[in-house]
């Protein structure tokens, strides 16, 4: 059977990749979820569209959830004492940010701004809390995935910290313990 692009476009694959659940399944946090759990997650998240240079949140705002970038680009920055912007990270599709606010109502530690027209998938604390009552099992799996990625990050961070400490010890000429 020849792969006629016309029919190819109409049936399956291409359209499949456009769906939200396909996108979510590609995100590391959610890649262990089954098709059914992804469909449930799809009902839980909110899609928000931002214009170029639109603020997503500012440092100090009361945060209520995390965002995953579906398309576009997001700049994370903080302001130094002179009020100058210090870029902390430039995030691409598939990255997520703001996850600290998902577990507790804390002020945002940095600001986020869309640098181009950006589509974000938002996952918020109130929805997660409600979901734990309604569907405990899939929600536990979603949170477990988030926990796994955060634990990986923490491990990476502490490894880097150890390396930094070693290098600073070496540079100061103190003996390594």
């Amino acid at each position, binding site marked *: 059977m020849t792969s006629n692009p016309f029919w190819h476009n109409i049936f399956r694959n291409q359209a499949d990749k456009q769906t939200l659940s396909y996108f979510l399944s590609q995100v590391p946090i959610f890649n262990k979820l089954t098709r059914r759990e992804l469909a449930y997650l799809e009902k839980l998240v*909110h899609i*928000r569209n*931002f214009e170029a240079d*639109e*603020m*997503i*949140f*500012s*440092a*100090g*705002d*009361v*945060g*209520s*959830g995390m965002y995953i970038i579906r398309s576009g680009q997001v700049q994370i920055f903080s*302001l130094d*004492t*002179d*009020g100058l912007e210090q870029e902390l990270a430039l995030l691409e599709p598939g990255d997520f940010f703001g996850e600290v606010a998902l577990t507790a109502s804390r002020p945002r530690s940095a600001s986020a701004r869309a640098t181009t027209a950006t589509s974000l998938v*938002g996952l*918020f*604390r*109130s*929805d997660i*809390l*409600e979901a734990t*009552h*309604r*569907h*405990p099992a899939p929600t536990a799996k979603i949170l477990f995935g988030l926990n796994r990625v955060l634990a990986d990050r923490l491990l990476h961070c502490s490894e880097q910290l150890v390396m930094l400490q070693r290098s600073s010890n070496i540079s100061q000429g103190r003996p390594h313990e």
Partner: protein
Amino acid sequence: MSDSPGLSRAQVAVLYLVLTTAIASGIAIYSSATTITSLLKTATSGLFLPILLAMIVAFMLEPLVRLIENRGIHRTLAIFCIYLLISGTIVLLLLLIGPPNWRSMIQALKADVPRYVSFAIVYLTGLLELAQQHFPFIAHYNLGDHLRDFSQTLIGAILIQTPRSAMRIGSLLILVPLFSFFFLRDSRRIMRGIIALTPNRYFEMVLDIYSHVSWQLSNFIRGRIIEAIIVGLVVWAGLALTDIRYAPILAVIAGVSNLVPYVGPIFGMLPGITIALVDLGVGAQFWWILCVYILIAQIIVDNMILIPILISKVSNLHPLWVILAIIMGGKLYGILGMIIGVPIASIINIVILEIRQYRRTFNPYNRYFSSRGKML
């Protein structure tokens, strides 16, 4: 006109046309707006009560639906299960006990109400004469006549309204289950659709406020309804021990009036006490009925047991606001307004409390100054 120095003939014609069109379109817009609002008013006139009742039913059934849904059953199926269960219980009760004899009870009440009212009037007139002996200046306040007129119009209204309200109850029996089914199934989707309309900057705030309000409101409504049912049952049980007539109706009145805080219970016990005075006289049974209404139902069951368990979770309004809400609700929608005035006041309270947390979001200069006040 054509000779006027400033304007040529063509300009006058254009001015004339523009002015006429403006006036005509103004009248057209005004009349169509009034027709549209009056059309909307007539179209939605009967819908307020069924939608309100359906929301209350949905709030009450939500925990049951969730219980079944947690076992992995689809939500729609879970709602159908609950509906089947409830209608099954009602049919079973009707088969076991037999339908309550409401008709004869209401017929008897129709005959008895004038008797009770005339007794109350005689009693009040006696009180008034006593008062007039001490305070002669109130002689021209003919309270007895006022009361008689009022009671006659009230009885007339009840007699006329009964068949009409039977029709309304019939339509409620169809509409309320239908509406509450959709509220139960789709309320989340509907609310998500509405919340999705908010601008990005306020989205997180609106989502948080919505979740708080819905949590508090569902707890409040559930608590209030359960409280009213239990108080009604307690009053029924207490009254059933005596020889008083119409115990079930009096229990329903006590339960429903208990939905209005502070003022409601007082008005809820008036008919019971009047009937007890007329039929039983001041005796042991009368004091027992008074005790049931005030001491057992209100103080012990309601204030000591039910309110701490059911309502204390919800942020409480100051009594002053509660009374203001009751009065304003009563002005707008009568007894129904008195009942729903307090929940609406507490919604406003929660929203104000929540928004205070987010006051930074509303600061328009937020983006242009650093946290230390330096201009960016």
